[in-house]
């Protein structure tokens, strides 16, 4: 049965776009084959930097002849409608039509026969459509041509049943030609069928199957590692990228001059991997002084290529070494003076101004976390000094890391060095928070300063843009406080931060504090969602949002509480009581207070509950003040039996007006007790 072979030969497709592109092409074919009801045994897609290949096997030479009943108007329709239908199915007489009854009505039906069509003819029409509709994230024109593609498309090979399938895409006419490896076998050759095509490609040094090519690269690296007693540092992203940079992989081992190996590992890895796309290795715990480059050729003197690569890497590392030595000539604290010239934001002054503000808020934060002020001031002076170094200028993503290395080198206190790197953390949802006190205060000071400052000048995040990463700052603050169990008061901190800003910028609006807290609150709600805690529990606790750590503890305890039978049952009873109170308050148009008159009790159950609540109230206040949520809930829990008995025995709506009101006041007293802990009313049970 006939096969289809398509190869699009172009200039190099960007590595990261290759997999999505071949998938898109394959999907487009699959969709069209389904629509045309063409059966096949398999469809495959292959991609190299220069080629997109599609093979479809065992297609029919013709589509099936199909008889279709086309539905027309009702037989009672007017002549115009019937004639229109006759016309649309190429018939002249309504006696040629069938009649079928559907749901009690008679409709005209016409039998139409779809003749079999040659599959080749269909492909000839459809393939240009697929190519015209193909979507690249970016596309370009070239020469004098009309078509657009990711890079210049030079040749289209297309065979159906081993004959050329003729169509045009722009100026390109399909043919039966392909090309070998651009550098080793670049001449064109004629293609007869799929089997011989892929055989020739392999002979001409084109590893056309990207999955095979990827595995080859990985295996070659692993083999080299083994031969040299080093360990390959696995990197799936790099592997994918490199697979997209070659048609014929040839792994070559290069050496790194030992004099560079004392540079920070992060600097080495950035230069080797990120800039040069080489694979790195480990020798025990340290980085090995080897790299592997995947060349796209095999020559009779690969040494030349290795030397070339070694030279390039040396030049880069020499640069890094140059920066390292040059930077270390100046003490970090002197470097930090240059921050006076680095703008933080046009409306908020320099980075040095930021540091001065961070010192003030940092001192304020030491109300919540004890830190030595002198050490803090020193750490502050150094924390951002690396921003003006040559090294960070060259490797901006290494800010903080470089600062730490320089500080260690220049003999600053260990905790200060660590704080320089750690104050940027957490860098993402999966990154750790700082746990050393100095790092914590620096991190909080930095984030509060940025968050409040940006908000004050109107640089708030929108649903689509957050250029100053304020969401990340807020989440960072939340996680730092919670994971370090720090009890800090947001309104106090935010107001103090605003006060600090207004010392220099008196025009900034102090009333924005509420908005900022609301923003942090919303980030907290998102954060808690990830722990599978239901939103109603969060809602019940969230109103009192002064200390995020306390709120978090409350949520955890409340969640645990509600997962117990006693707890859930108690809350059900509570909600029942609240429902009654609310209904009666509405009926009476009044709010009940807590002033219960014990002389109006008719039942023992009323007295038991009353006494219980009195005792618990006193203890409750103490526990809440000490943040003893588990204990507080334990106390609340003891109300379960009394409440259950109460509802069993006592009818709230006594005929006696005074007794009724008294019972409602009792229920109100219970409600108010629980409300001290959380807005239980918001729970959904």
């Amino acid at each position: 049965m006939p096969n289809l072979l398509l190869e699009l030969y172009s200039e190099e497709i960007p590595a990261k776009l290759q997999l999505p592109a071949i998938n898109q092409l394959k999907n487009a074919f699959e969709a069209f084959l389904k629509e045309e009801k063409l059966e096949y045994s398999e469809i495959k897609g292959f991609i190299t930097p220069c080629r997109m290949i599609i093979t479809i096997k065992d297609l029919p030479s013709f589509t099936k002849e199909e008889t279709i009943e086309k539905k027309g108007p009702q037989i009672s329709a007017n002549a115009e409608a019937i004639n229109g239908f006759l016309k649309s199915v190429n018939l002249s007489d309504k006696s040629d039509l069938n009649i079928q009854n559907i749901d009690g009505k008679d409709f005209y039906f016409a039998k139409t026969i779809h003749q079999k069509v040659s599959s080749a003819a269909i492909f000839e029409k459809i393939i240009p459509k697929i190519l015209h509709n193909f979507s690249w994230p970016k596309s370009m024109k070239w020469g004098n041509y009309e078509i657009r593609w990711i890079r210049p498309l030079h040749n289209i090979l297309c065979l159906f049943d081993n004959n050329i399938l003729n169509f045009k895409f722009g100026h390109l006419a399909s043919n039966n030609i392909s090309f070998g490896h651009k550098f080793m076998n670049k001449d064109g050759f004629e293609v007869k069928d799929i089997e011989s095509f892929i055989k020739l490609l392999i002979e001409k040094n084109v590893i056309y199957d990207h999955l095979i090519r990827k595995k080859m690269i990985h295996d070659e690296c692993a083999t080299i590692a083994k031969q040299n007693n080093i360990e390959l540092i696995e990197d799936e992203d790099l592997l994918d990228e490199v697979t997209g940079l070659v048609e014929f992989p040839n792994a070559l081992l290069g050496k790194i001059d030992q004099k560079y190996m004392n540079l920070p590992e992060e600097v080495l890895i950035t230069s080797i991997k990120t800039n040069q796309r080489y694979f790195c290795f480990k020798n025990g715990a340290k980085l090995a002084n080897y790299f592997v480059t995947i060349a796209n050729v095999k020559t009779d003197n690969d040494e030349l290529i290795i030397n070339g690569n070694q030279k390039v890497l040396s030049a880069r590392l020499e640069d890094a070494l140059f920066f390292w030595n040059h930077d270390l000539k100046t003490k970090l604290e002197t470097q930090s003076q240059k921050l006076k010239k680095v703008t933080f934001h046009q409306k908020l002054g320099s980075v040095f101004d930021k540091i001065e503000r961070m010192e003030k808020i940092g001192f304020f934060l030491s109300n919540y976390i004890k830190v030595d002020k002198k050490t803090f001031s020193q750490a502050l002076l150094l924390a951002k000094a690396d921003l003006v170094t040559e090294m960070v200028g060259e490797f901006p993503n290494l800010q903080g890391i470089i600062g730490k290395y320089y500080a260690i080198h220049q003999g600053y206190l260990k905790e200060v060095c660590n704080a320089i790197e750690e104050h940027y953390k957490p860098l993402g949802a999966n990154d750790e928070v700082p746990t050393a006190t100095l790092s914590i205060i620096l991190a909080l000071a930095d984030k509060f300063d940025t968050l409040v400052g940006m908000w004050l000048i109107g640089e708030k995040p929108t649903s689509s843009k957050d250029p100053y990463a304020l969401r990340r700052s807020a989440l960072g603050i939340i996680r730092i406080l919670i994971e370090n169990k720090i009890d800090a008061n947001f309104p106090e901190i935010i107001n103090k931060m605003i006060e600090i800003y207004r010392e220099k910028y008196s025009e900034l609006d102090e009333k924005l504090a509420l908005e900022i807290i609301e923003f942090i609150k919303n980030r907290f709600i998102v954060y808690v969602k990830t722990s599978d805690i239901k939103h109603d529990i969060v809602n019940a606790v969230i109103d009192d949002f002064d200390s995020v750590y306390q709120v978090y503890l409350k949520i955890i305890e409340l969640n645990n509480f509600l997962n117990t039978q006693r707890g859930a049952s108690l809350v059900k009873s509570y909600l029942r009581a609240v429902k009654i109170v609310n209904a009666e308050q509405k009926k009476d148009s009044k709010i009940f207070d807590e002033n219960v008159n014990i002389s109006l009790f008719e039942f023992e159950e009323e007295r038991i509950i009353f006494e219980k609540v009195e005792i618990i109230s006193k203890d409750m206040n103490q526990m809440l003040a000490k943040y003893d949520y588990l204990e507080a809930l334990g106390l609340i829990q003891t109300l379960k039996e009394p409440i259950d008995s109460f509802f069993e025995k006592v009818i709230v709506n006594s005929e006696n007006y005074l007794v009724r009101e008294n019972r409602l006041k009792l229920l109100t007293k219970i409600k108010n007790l629980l409300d001290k802990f959380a807005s239980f009313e918001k729970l959904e049970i």
Partner: protein
Amino acid sequence: MNNSSFQDIIFKLQQFWAENDCIILQGLDNEVGAGTLHPATSIMSLANDSWKVAYVQASRRPKDARYGENPNRLGHYYQFQVILKPSPDNIQELCLKSLEAIGINPSKHDIRFVEDDWENPTIGAWGLGFEVWCDGMEIMQFTYMQQIGGISFDTIPGELTYGLERVAMYIQDVKHFKDIKWNSANDPKFAKTYGDIFLEDEKQFTKYSLEESDTQMLINSFVAAEKECNALNEKKLPLPAYSFCLKASHYFNLLDARGVISVTERASYIAKVRSLAKNCCETYLAGKNA
């Protein structure tokens, strides 16, 4: 490798591209940051459908100046620039042949065309193309220009750019730019290195750009150049206008190198220069079509 001197490389490239129908021009007599800003690229390639040109262009990037101490970094360096309009189908092959002409044999090296999307926002230009790597080092770039001065091309020019110092260091196997042999003389007294000729330049110009420039003068000069450029476009003299656009761009580069421009100000300066460039291109095209 081989012993091509710096000027040999230039001669060979000029020869090669002349043989491929390029007119060989001299560099522009105005400070520019890249060969693309020469009107032979920026304006002529918009205005002409058939246009092949090659030239050496001295490029000034004050921000990259390092007193001549950094082995790989220069505030003043040379680009070899080629424009081929329309871009030929065999442009990659021509690149490789040009490398062969200067002594880099593609069959002995690992040559790669690695994706590069290029843009120069100061003249509203962008394109898609490649960096050409030779054994891991980028030695040239070629770009299919899609727009210049904010104007889209119907016929696409291919732009090739060689970093001459980088190429020379690679070919001559030297580690510091100052050791590049500029010429190969019969009498060794007359054989000069790059450093012999330009090291002092680098030192003095770095000191100027990073430490000594009069920033107020530069700011005033930017404003004056901007004003003159607009005035000359009004008078339908886009080519002299463009020379002032280039001056404005250079003053901006000097201010930037001095570190006195904030992030938001930079965006504003770039937008201004782009607007000047766009104006010049549009005025030129309008004049040509009239």
